[in-house]
């Protein structure tokens, strides 16, 4: 009818739902949605930007492999103790299966990767915790590998740098996990007394026993923006003191305000800043006036 021509076209009352086949046309992983600002971006570009969101600067989780690639000079990393694996000292049901599953998923053998490498040409010993493996929790292997990395730094007389990312002690290894806090701290003290330089970079999350041992024992304690850092869990504190906590409680920025950190450094500036710190601590540290 003629009058139909002048009426506004009715808005569709249904949303377009892509068909199953259309969905599969976009292979998984091409796009990434930022969990913070919900914006969608190309994964490749995000990775190129060290997994820092272009829009809100949210620092996406980095696994150990990505971290090493982003931080060390290319091809400089030499891993040590890569095939050390956990036992089941408490005979905890399903523990071994869970470990195997995570090994399969992450292609690493435990929640920390250790070794040596160079940054701006300067040799360091490094330990990178990986929160994609059992939430980065610390059991006997994590404690032992970190301790051996510290001993390696001591042996080579090079700085020790650790990236922490951990929910804390691993429950399935009970008190042995707790003792790893002491083991790593005792090793750090020996290294420190021998003049070794320790830099700790806390990434999201660094809590519990890891926060209460090596993570807090750097000559320089640094953190990535927005990282959750603390000893006790937020919920436990809220239940204990029966009041709500501020939103920024236990964030890197909160800790900086409380005087617990030297600096909060965006991931994109991290390598340069660490290089600068290292260059102030040149090996030997013996300053000599240049003869003119």
């Amino acid at each position: 009818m003629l009058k139909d021509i002048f009426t506004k076209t009715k808005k569709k009352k249904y949303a377009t739902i892509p068909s199953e086949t259309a969905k599969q046309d976009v292979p998984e992983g091409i796009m990434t949605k930022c969990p913070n600002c919900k914006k969608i971006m190309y994964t490749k570009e995000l990775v190129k930007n060290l997994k820092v969101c272009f829009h809100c600067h949210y620092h996406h989780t980095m696994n150990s492999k990505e971290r090493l690639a982003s931080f060390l000079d290319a091809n400089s990393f030499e891993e040590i103790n890569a095939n050390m694996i956990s036992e089941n000292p408490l005979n905890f049901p399903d523990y071994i299966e869970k470990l195997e599953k995570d090994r399969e998923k992450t292609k690493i053998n435990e929640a920390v990767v250790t070794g040596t490498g160079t940054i701006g040409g300067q040799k360091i010993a490094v330990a990178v915790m990986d929160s994609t493996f059992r939430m980065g929790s610390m059991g006997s292997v994590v404690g032992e590998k970190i301790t051996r990395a510290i001993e390696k730094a001591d042996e080579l007389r090079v700085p020790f740098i650790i990236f922490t990312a951990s929910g804390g002690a691993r429950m399935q290894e009970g008190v042995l996990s707790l003792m790893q806090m002491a083991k790593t701290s005792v090793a750090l003290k020996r290294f420190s007394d021998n003049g070794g330089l320790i830099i700790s970079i806390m990434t999201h999350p660094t809590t519990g026993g890891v926060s209460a041992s090596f993570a807090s024992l750097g000559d320089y304690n640094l953190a990535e923006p927005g990282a959750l850092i603390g000893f006790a869990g937020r919920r436990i504190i809220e239940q204990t003191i029966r009041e709500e906590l501020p939103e920024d409680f236990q964030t890197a920025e909160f800790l900086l305000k409380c005087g617990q950190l030297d600096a909060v450094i965006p991931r994109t500036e991290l390598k340069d800043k660490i290089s600068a710190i290292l260059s102030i601590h040149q090996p030997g540290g013996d300053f000599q006036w240049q003869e003119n």
Partner: protein
Amino acid sequence: MAGELEFERPVMELKKKIAELKEFTKTADVDLSSEIEKLEARLEKLEADIYENMKPWDRVQIARHPARPTTLDYISYLFEDFFECHGDRAFGDDEAIVGGIAKFKGIPVTVIGHQRGKDTKENIRRNFGMPHPEGYRKALRLMKQADKFRRPIICFIDTKGAYPGKAAEERGQSEAIAKNLFEMASLRVPVICIVIGEGGSGGALALGVGNHIHMLENSTYSVISPEGAAAILWKDAAQAKKAAESMRITAPDLKELGVVDQIIEEVKGGAHKDVKVQAAEIEEVLTHSLKDLMDLTEDQLIDHRYNKFKSIGEYSFLKEFIGVK
């Protein structure tokens, strides 16, 4: 009897019955001595049965007994001339940790320990034995002082854990604990730690980096409380009893895991039944421990501590190499 625990009720009931019979024979003109003898024999067997086969959860109950002797109780029996030192020199004095100087059998020592209360009023003052950072910093200050004057250090461990509070986080609970672990490593004097009640997580470990670690028979030492473990593992804090069993938190467990050096025998039914006798047991172990360690040089003491903690943990190696490339 006040403070009796569930698992020891049969013993208590039998004891009561015997007491009643004894009372009865005094007043009535009947001879029940053979009956009483029989019952006493049964009591002995029952006590042996119950107290020698204690389940982990029974030990947890004893470790948490409100009347269980505290650090200050043992200090009064074990040391002379105890002088308590207060404050961390930076923020305040945390009464959840006590410390000071004293003499043990004539030897000058520094004594530090977690301190909980025995009643509500004292528990509020002591924050239920759950320290804030200033407590750990006070402890560290006293340890450094002991190091300066070459006094052995004796630590009593008895806490549910470091206090999980807002102020504690703001003042650096993590850093305070970490610093203690770090600094205790290089103390040039013997450090002996004795777990007398609950050894709860990092809050306990912060006084626990010793050359020797001993545990009272019915004390516990764990990475998380049984309730906490149950809440995480099975989403049900009520399963604490089961968690206590699977987490291996008792003194015999820790001895087997290679964490603890010696188990200090307890008075039958728990230390609270006779503090004096219990203190004597501790004194004996402490004497031996101290004698052994005082033979070591300063460097040997530091190495000894390093090797002790280095050896804790279980791991193996995969044959094939799978590394990050």
